[in-house]
Each structure stands twice: as structure tokens, then as C-alpha cells.
């Protein structure tokens, strides 16, 4: 580690101002200016580093600058590397890396929209998070009040890239979709049945979440974190709590760590089971979905017995969990899991015995491993396309370092294998929970409450059922949050859908989309 930073100092003597590790396994490299391009290229080439997220912070009132942060992850290294670059108020611009790193295309444009900092050289610098018809406002600047009432939006309309050719036409879909799903707009260019090109427009559900975190008392902010993506309430809540706990140096009791681990895996099981059923539905195999829906009810019933909520809300808290478990609750976990495991095995057997279903899933919606790597795809979708990455193993948190589990990885990258990753992971989750139950420590479920020191920064990262969830916080005065950046795995993975649908028939779009099952609200916040 030390050699790595000495070498950085030697190579970029003008650029590096300081290297610190304020939080264990989170190294912050403060630079003298915004020009990170050379250093980032060095990171990518020499260390096979991967960009996790990029985000900004308004410190103009206190330090006279904005900061843009770049978070990197290096294979085989448990530390996150965070580049922190000051952007002067009078030159509100930072160099765009989106051409080299398509994973941050939207995140750089978010910074443009929200902070009014220009991503200089961005290949497509149009509005993304605030739609085209918004007035010229930058809501995440501290000078912009949260409760600002904007006039009715009457600006320009979004222009999609036109497609030309004999028999080529465009199909606009959304934002209100045909099923019970979240809103977004898909613009398909098709030549007959095959899809030539898909354009996405998101952020229909932008709710000002990151602005809402600012000045929010921390105990209330946990509930906001639970509402970022409703199917990942516990994962997002935990990532947020971890960030605060690391910033404030709060030690979470062992028992709470194990309880959190069990609940994180129950969230994974419930969602994976539902997804396996939904994928079957989208190729017309409804009976499998009926069984999946029934199995999911068993899991959410257990959730309710463990947390009071079918979707695990109101349980996680800074310092641990809100409620302890009695012996009968703990026993219910093992008993229910036995039933769920048997039922899930039958469900998988039913799906696998159907040749017509397999035929629809195999070679459909292929995301090639080289593309997945370039696009920075994470989570289930990444692991189905050769990306061997899982935060639970690579940056262990809660009880994961003490529990055995395997990370399934496939190369095929089609719908069938995105389903297979889920099936394998459900199996691993059963084993994980059983191992955690066998070693569930006695003791407190919550660390003693203490006032939070202000001005501390830290990151929390959780492998949610969909993929990598990151929260970065700065604590403020009076037990409040000063800034919270939220990165849902979905924002990384939308470009994968664009890639995977190309050349597929439009009738297969629903099942391809479902095999990724990305969160619109997590993307839009």
C-alpha cells in the first residue's frame, strides 16, 4: 500500500497534495487541481482499477471550492481509493472521463445538472437528471433552497437521435408502461422485428433525495435511505448506516452484524425468487411465476416476523438494528428456510424441465464479457457476463468475512445465465443464513447512542441483491447529515440493456429488461 502511494507521489508530484486514510480501508488522495485525467489513466492501466462512482459536493461557503470525488476499486485490494479534486468557484468545470469510462456517463451529467459544473469534453453533455424542460437551476448547490417552488415547466422537449433507412421506424414506449413497473422512456429503432438501437431516458422519478438528506437529522435520514429503492430498502438503509458508523467511529455489536447479514440475505432471496418467476412470465410460463409468488410470500412473511415489515423497513439503525430477536423468531428463520429451499428447488426444476422456456432464455439478450467490463457493469448482470466481483467478498462488511459462500460467475451473458446467477445465489444465501444462525452471537443489538462528530466523511458499500450500493456521507452539526451521495447499481447497468437488446426481436425486450431488473427510483433518486 505504502509503495503504491509513494509511487503516485513520484509520478504526479505537482498534483498530489496529501494522502490520508481517515477511515480504515478508505484512502483519500487530495489533489491540487481538477485535472485527474492522467492519474486516472495510470490507475486504469497499471492497477486494472475500476471506477465505482463520481460525485460532487458544494463547499463554496466554507472552503471556497466545489469538490469532485472519484471512487476507485482495485482487484485484490480491500481499500477504496477516493480522489478528491477541488473545483474553484470561478472556473466551474472538471474534465470529463466519460469517453474512456462509459460507466460514469450519466453521473458526470448529473453533476452538470445539479451543481452547474461543466463536464468539459463530455461526448453527450445534454441534460439527464433534470429534464430538458427545466429552468436553469442547480438544486444541489447550497444556495438553492430545498423547498424552492419552480414555475410550471414549459421548456424544450427532448430530441431523440433519428434513425433512417428503408423499413426502419421508431417505437416510443413509456414513461407509463404496460405492466406494474416504474416509469422510464424507451425509444426503440427497429427494422422489422429486430432492434437496431435503443435510446433510454430516465430520471422520471427524480425526487430530490440527495438534497433532502442535507440537514436531515441522522435518525430520520435512515428512513429516507430505505425509500431510495423500495425493493432494496434494507440494503440501502444498511449502506447508509455503515457510512455514518464509519464516519463517527461507531462499533456495531457482533450480534447486530449477524442480524444485518441475515436480513440482507433474506432481501436477496425474496427478490431473486420473484425475478426468477417474472423472467418465466415474460416468456409465457405463468405457472412458474405462480409458484414463485407463493414462495416469495413465505419469505416476506418471515421478514414481517423478524422486523414488523414485509419489506424489511424500519429495522436497520445507525449503531445496529432497532429490535432484538427472541428465541422463537430465530427458530422461525431456520424452519421457514427449510420450506423455502424445498419449494425453490421444485420451482427451478419446473423451469428447467420446460424446453420451450429454455429455448427462449438461451442466447437471448447477450451482454458479452468484454462489453460488460468496458461499461463497468456490476452485480448479477456483471457476474453473468464474466465480471467476478462481489462486495461481500472483496470489501467484506457485517459478518461476511466470517461466513463461507461462493460467488457464481458465468461467461455467457444471456438471460438464461442472469437467471442462473440468481438461482445459484439463492442457494448460497440459504447456506450463509444457516451458518450465521449457527454462530449468532449473544449480546447487544445496538451500540450505545452518542452524538455524531460533525465534518466527518466516509463511505458505506453493500452488495445488494441487484449489485453494488454505495453511500458517501459528510456529517454535519447537531446530529445531521451535511451531504449524502447515493449510488445504486442500476445507474451503472442501464447501458448494459442498450447493449444486450441490439439485434434481438422487440418481443424479447420485456424478458431482457426483466433479466436485469434495474431500479428506476434508485437511478433517478
Amino acid at each position, binding site marked *: 500500500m505504502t509503495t503504491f502511494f509513494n509511487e503516485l507521489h513520484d509520478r504526479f508530484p505537482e498534483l498530489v497534495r496529501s494522502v490520508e486514510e481517515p477511515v480504515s480501508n478508505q484512502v483519500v488522495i487530495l489533489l491540487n487541481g481538477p485535472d485527474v485525467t492522467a492519474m486516472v489513466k495510470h490507475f486504469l492501466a497499471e492497477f486494472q482499477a475500476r471506477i465505482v462512482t463520481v460525485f460532487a459536493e458544494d463547499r463554496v461557503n466554507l472552503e471556497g471550492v466545489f469538490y469532485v470525488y472519484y471512487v476507485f476499486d482495485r482487484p485484490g485490494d480491500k481499500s477504496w481509493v477516493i480522489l478528491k479534486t477541488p473545483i474553484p468557484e470561478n472556473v466551474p468545470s472538471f474534465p470529463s472521463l466519460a469517453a474512456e469510462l462509459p460507466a460514469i456517463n450519466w453521473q458526470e451529467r448529473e453533476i452538470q445538472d445539479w451543481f452547474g459544473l461543466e463536464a468539459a469534453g463530455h461526448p453527450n453533455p445534454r441534460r439527464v437528471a433534470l429534464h430538458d424542460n427545466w429552468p436553469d437551476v442547480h438544486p444541489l448547490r447550497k444556495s438553492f433552497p430545498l423547498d424552492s417552488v419552480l414555475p410550471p415547466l414549459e421548456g424544450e422537449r427532448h430530441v431523440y437521435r433519428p434513425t433512417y433507412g428503408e423499413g426502419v421506424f421508431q417505437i416510443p414506449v413509456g414513461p*407509463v408502461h404496460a405492466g406494474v413497473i416504474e416509469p422510464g422512456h424507451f425509444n426503440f429503432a427497429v427494422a422489422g422485428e429486430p432492434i437496431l438501437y435503443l435510446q433510454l431516458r430516465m430520471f422520471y422519478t427524480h425526487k430530490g433525495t440527495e438534497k433532502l438528506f442535507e440537514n436531515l437529522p441522522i435518525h430520520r435520514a435512515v428512513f429516507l435511505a430505505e425509500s431510495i429503492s423500495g425493493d432494496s430498502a434494507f440494503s440501502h438503509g444498511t449502506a447508509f448506516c455503515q457510512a455514518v458508523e464509519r464516519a463517527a467511529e461507531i462499533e456495531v455489536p457482533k450480534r447486530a452484524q449477524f442480524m444485518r447479514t441475515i436480513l440482507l440475505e433474506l432481501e436477496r432471496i425474496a427478490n431473486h425468487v420473484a425475478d426468477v418467476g417474472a423472467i418465466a412470465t415474460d416468456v409465457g410460463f405463468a405457472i412458474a411465476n405462480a409458484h414463485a409468488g407463493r414462495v416469495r410470500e413465505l419469505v416476506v412473511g418471515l421478514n414481517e416476523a423478524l422486523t414488523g415489515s414485509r419489506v424489511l423497513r424500519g429495522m436497520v439503525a445507525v449503531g445496529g438494528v432497532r429490535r432484538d430477536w427472541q428465541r422463537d423468531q430465530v427458530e422461525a428463520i431456520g424452519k421457514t428456510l427449510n420450506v423455502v429451499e424445498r419449494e425453490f428447488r421444485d420451482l427451478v426444476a419446473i423451469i428447467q424441465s420446460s424446453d420451450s422456456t429454455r429455448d427462449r432464455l438461451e442466447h437471448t439478450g447477450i451482454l458479452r464479457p468484454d462489453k460488460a467490463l468496458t461499461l463497468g457493469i456490476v452485480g448479477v448482470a456483471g457476474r453473468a457476463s464474466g465480471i467476478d466481483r462481489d462486495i461481500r467478498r472483496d470489501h467484506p462488511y457485517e459478518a461476511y468475512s466470517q461466513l463461507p459462500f461462493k460467488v457464481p460467475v458465468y461467461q455467457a451473458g444471456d438471460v438464461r445465465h442472469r437467471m442462473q446467477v440468481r438461482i445459484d445465489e439463492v442457494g448460497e444465501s440459504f447456506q450463509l443464513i444457516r451458518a450465521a444462525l449457527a454462530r449468532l452471537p449473544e449480546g447487544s443489538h445496538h451500540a450505545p447512542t452518542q452524538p455524531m462528530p460533525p465534518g466527518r466523511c466516509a463511505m458505506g458499500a453493500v452488495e445488494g441483491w441487484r449489485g453494488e450500493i454505495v453511500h458517501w456521507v459528510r456529517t454535519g452539526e447537531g446530529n445531521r447529515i451535511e451531504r449524502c451521495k447515493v449510488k445504486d447499481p442500476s445507474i451503472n447497468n442501464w447501458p448494459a440493456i442498450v447493449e444486450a437488446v441490439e439485434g434481438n426481436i422487440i418481443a424479447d425486450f420485456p424478458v431482457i429488461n426483466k433479466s436485469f431488473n434495474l431500479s428506476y427510483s434508485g437511478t433517478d433518486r
Partner: protein
Amino acid sequence: MFNILQKSFSIGSATADYPNIPPRLAEQFRGCPEFDFDAWSDARPAAEVCPTGAIALHDGDSLRDVTVDYGRCIFCGECAEASADGAVRITRNFELAVTDRRDLVLTAEYTLHPDGSHAELQSTNSGPSAEIPARRIAAAIHHLLGRSLSIRQVDAGSCNGCEQEIVALNNPVHDIERFGIHFVASPRHADMLLVTGPVTRNMELALRKTWAATPEPKVVVAVGACGIGGGIFGTNYATMGGVDAVIPVDVYIPGCPPRPEALLHGILLALGQVRQSMGSHPRR
């Protein structure tokens, strides 16, 4: 094929007979909080911890107005834990849907001690009038719309939490189709819009257009704390608050998210509204 049949026979019927039989709730299930206004010695701790502002205080000269809005409550249980006097209790009640938004709001007025705790309860307004039990409404459905109701769900900005429970209405356990109710792909085919919120600025136009595309007679059901009043997101630069800030709403279903039975209760309640509006809109 054989294994599919065998599995289906071995399971039998998985459907729970709500509303004829109350659902099996876990002992730990959190329904809405209940307030004993007479015994409540201090509302400040509960208001302090309430994440959505569902419990709000307005202190004047030695007087305090307390407002409890079930429409914004997310059933987190924090108010009960924070109130040392035991005046706030978490119940197992989830059948909370109403046709009048005001019925979700309780108010109480207290005189205060110098330290800010309550001296005497001056008045209360206990909000919800007696609601019609879901069972009775279900009986009415046989006379309606040839035993079928078509719902178009609209996510106008939700976190996807409510959508999960709405999807669960279609699974074999909750099986909403047993009432002749089904979800349709277009608002043009719908009798009812089931809308989740908060309504974002970016979804406002799409929601208005969807409402305009739905033929009369139609009813609108606002789902969840966000759909009713913006929930934890409230009204800010990016959100308009609840659904009724944009289109007229007939029924409100509290919860975060409302459990499937709570949704069913609200949808059945809204069916009564369909019947009423059919009276005023004779079939052409």
C-alpha cells in the same frame, strides 16, 4: 408436464380468503399507531422522531395543537417507542383506506405546563368516521360492472416499494382476480387508476395525460404515504407532493408500503365509488 401437475395438486389452493377471514399477521407486524390523547403527557418526543412529519406540533401561548396525519405515517413505530407515557401504541390495524382525505387527520389541543409538557386536553377531533368493512364492500361487487374491474397502475414517482405489494396482489395467495379485478396495460381500458407517488415534476405531465386517457366513469386511488401526501419526500423542488395535487383522488390507502390486504381493502372501497359515479354517468 407431469411434474408441473403433480406440484400444483400437492399444493392445492394457496389463496388466503381475505376479507372473509382476517389475514395471518406476524405477531411483530406494525399497523397504525393509536393515540390516547387523554393520557398523552408530551407530544414532543414523538414529533421529534417522526420521519415524515406525520406528527406535527404548533405551539402558541401556553397552547399546543397536535396534528396526527395517518396519510403521511409510514408505520415505523418510532412515536410509540419515544413516548414514555405509553399513550402511543402500535396496533395491528391496516384497513385504513378512506374516501375523504380529512378522515386521516386527528387533532388535539392541549394547555401546557411551563416545561412544555401537556397540562390539560382541551379538545380532540378523532378523524376517521366508521369505515365500511371490506367484507361488506366485497359483497357489493357482484352487482358491479358485470363482476369485473380494470385497473391501470401508474407509478408517478414511487420508490417501487408500493409496486412490489401491488404485484403481490396478482400472486396466488392474494389473487385479486378472484374478485373479477384485473390489471390492464392501457389507461384506455381502465376503470380505475391506482397511483403511487410522490408525483415528481418529471412525471406530472404523464400522469395528467394518463388520467385524461382514462374513460369516464373512472376512479383514482392514491396509494401509500407518498401517494397521499408526498410521504417522506414531501413537496420539494422535484416533487409535487401527493397525487391529489395533480388529479382528483377518490380513495386514499395509507401505508409504506400498504400490505396487499390493505390495498385490497382500499380497492374494494373504491368500487363503491365506481358504483356511485356509474349512477351519475349512465352507460351510453
